[in-house]
């Protein structure tokens, strides 16, 4: 299990400059990754293996490879835990991972962090569906007399 597959069915994401925004459409939680984190997401979301992602980031930011590997591992596990991705056993490995990244880079290596914003989750309340009207459409239970 050394690559990820983004759960595109309910996860949407976009990158603007050095920040990536990820939205879980089912829970309403949204996430931001900046700088190194944005680069990490860009690679992992294209199914670059964790080894490859760590190599690219360590080279790009001139950081200690073992440290980067541990932090990319941690981020990948967090993405899976948050329901944004799943482990991919048979990834479609990008031919040139470095080409996926924008030219400008963050000034220095910092651990890739996933910032979570869940202020929208309280708005997502499932409507309880217990009954169906005579036309077959869901309806709330009738008020007690």
């Amino acid at each position, binding site marked *: 299990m050394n690559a990820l597959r983004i759960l595109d069915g309910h996860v*949407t*994401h*976009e990158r*603007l*400059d*050095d*920040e990536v*925004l990820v*939205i879980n*459409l*089912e829970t*309403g939680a*949204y996430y*931001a990754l*900046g700088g190194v984190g944005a680069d990490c997401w860009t690679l992992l979301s294209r199914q670059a293996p964790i080894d490859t992602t760590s190599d690219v980031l360590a080279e790009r930011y001139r950081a200690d490879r073992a440290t980067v590997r541990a932090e990319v591992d941690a981020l990948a596990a967090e993405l899976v835990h948050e329901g944004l991705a799943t482990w991919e056993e048979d990834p479609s490995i990008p031919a040139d991972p470095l080409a996926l990244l924008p030219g400008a880079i963050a000034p220095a290596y910092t651990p890739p962090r996933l910032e979570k*914003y869940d*202020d*929208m989750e309280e*708005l*997502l*309340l*499932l*409507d309880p*569906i217990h009954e*169906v*009207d005579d*036309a*077959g*459409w*869901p*309806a*709330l239970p009738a008020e007690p007399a």
Partner: protein
Amino acid sequence: MRATLEVFDRASDDTHETLERSYELAGDTVRVRYAGTRLADRFDVPLAPFVTEDPAAPALTISCWDRTTVDRSPPPPPWLHTDHLPRHRIRGFDADGVRATYDVQHGLLHLYDPESRQAVCFAQDAARIPPWTARAPFRALLGWWATDRGLAVVHASAVGGPNGCVLVTGPSGSGKSTTALACVARGFGLVADDVAIVALGAEVAAFASSGIAKVEAGSPVGLDELGGTVVEVHGAQTMLDLGGRVVRRAPVRAVIAASVGADARCRVERLAPASCFRALAGHSVVEALSGDQRSLPALRELARRVPAYRIELGSDLDDVVATVCVVLERSA
């Protein structure tokens, strides 16, 4: 969709009160057909500023009826009860092809078919439609339709005039609505109270889609300052018809990410495009829309093209409005 439209046709035959309206929305003509008048009675006022007497061929046709007027229901839903998702979405009917939402609590169905450019709005009872839905008719349908056309649907207020407006975004309680109302009370036009449709052509432009503004009880901006006509009062919310103050289209000059500050006066800082994107996208995609994934690229484009500012709003509303004026002037 075809079967549902056939039910509408039979409903039209059953009732002797059929209405048709044409509206200019987001630069195009939207035709609305009503079987019975009860839904038209709820939706006429918010859509009044957009009526066109000289419509072009419609880009979207919406067929509407409610069951208390004509006792005909759409065909039984083709999805399972377990497919109902949060925010009225339906699994399998929220992305491509025919899209649907069903508000179980209020018995309100929206269907949209991008291929035929047909849509349906069916209510079990027009009187049960909540005020926050009635003040922004067909929001889900217009959101899908706009997104398919590459427009951005933004959870934001928008105020200004025909020569330019600002989008004011922020979570609930951020002062977004108060800022917009304060500006309107001091002479600005209203483009959007809650959701703005933004075109990203040669010019970035915001379009209005409702003539109603919501005013909460206890708002620092009083009803008498705003003028307008009270349409409905629901609990702590007053729906105000500001039809004469609506600006149907305005170039977007800036985005303001609002938050409530601690001082009397505002504090302003320029916002990087990525931060603006984050401010716009989280709430726009989840709250204001049906959760359409395709809205994100349009929001990114908006953040890239329009200057943005973070404003900590002060308690002095005159200063808030003056700050918005400065932002508009600097961004012209």
